[in-house]
């Protein structure tokens, strides 16, 4: 399992549309993927559970990926949370 903790810089936070993109990306990978905010960890493939986290710009979240393509998954998903040009 690999983990990355990062600050969400996506202007929109992770509301429906970005969360949708995130979930679609998660489903491309074989790895088990989880997203955590504070003490709450949810499966990366559940749109509703991600929406429930209420992630806004500036929140610190942890991405946890476990599986054969965990490195690629971590990189691709981090890019959605921190879009190009918005990295602090």
């Amino acid at each position: 399992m690999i983990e990355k903790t990062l600050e969400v810089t996506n202007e929109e936070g992770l509301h429906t549309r970005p969360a949708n993109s995130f979930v679609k990306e998660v489903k491309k990978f074989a790895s088990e993927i989880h997203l955590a905010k504070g003490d709450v960890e949810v499966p990366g493939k559940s749109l509703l559970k991600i929406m429930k986290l209420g992630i806004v710009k500036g929140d610190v979240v942890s991405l946890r990926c476990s599986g054969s393509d965990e490195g690629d998954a971590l990189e691709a998903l981090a890019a959605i949370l921190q879009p190009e040009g918005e990295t602090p």
Partner: protein
Amino acid sequence: MASFVERLIESDTIAVGLTAADWEDAVRIGGAMMVNKGLAEKRYIDAIIENHKTIGPYFIVAPGIAMPHAKPENGVLKTGYAVVTLSTPVEFGDEENDPVDILIFAGAINREEHNQEAIPQIAELCDSEEYVEALRAAPDKAGIVAVLRRFAAALDAGELG
């Protein structure tokens, strides 16, 4: 944060068992309730429809459930909601979740209320099979209100999630 359920009941923007020609008609019917109650300008509803046509079904959140919304700057006047149930489901073009028979409209006055009130509370509701089934089975507005009050009480009591 205020309660999605309280705001919805206060604005009285609930319609049950409607018939819609297609997804756009369903969004216009629900959207008209928000406009009539002063929650949003008509252009907010136009934005939802335009976005859907441009980028696809971005607001279908679960099987059978749509959460039509656009950005605060698209014409929201006051944070508010509307709920529409359809007697005959309509297709939104989302393979995983079509057809849709519950629409939960949201319009937030700013990003904070959108991300911290509207999204988490509606997601909580949609993530509960018990309440979703009860909403589908509700025969009238009073039935919907009763289900939502039960949901809000459970949410406040920390019984969900």
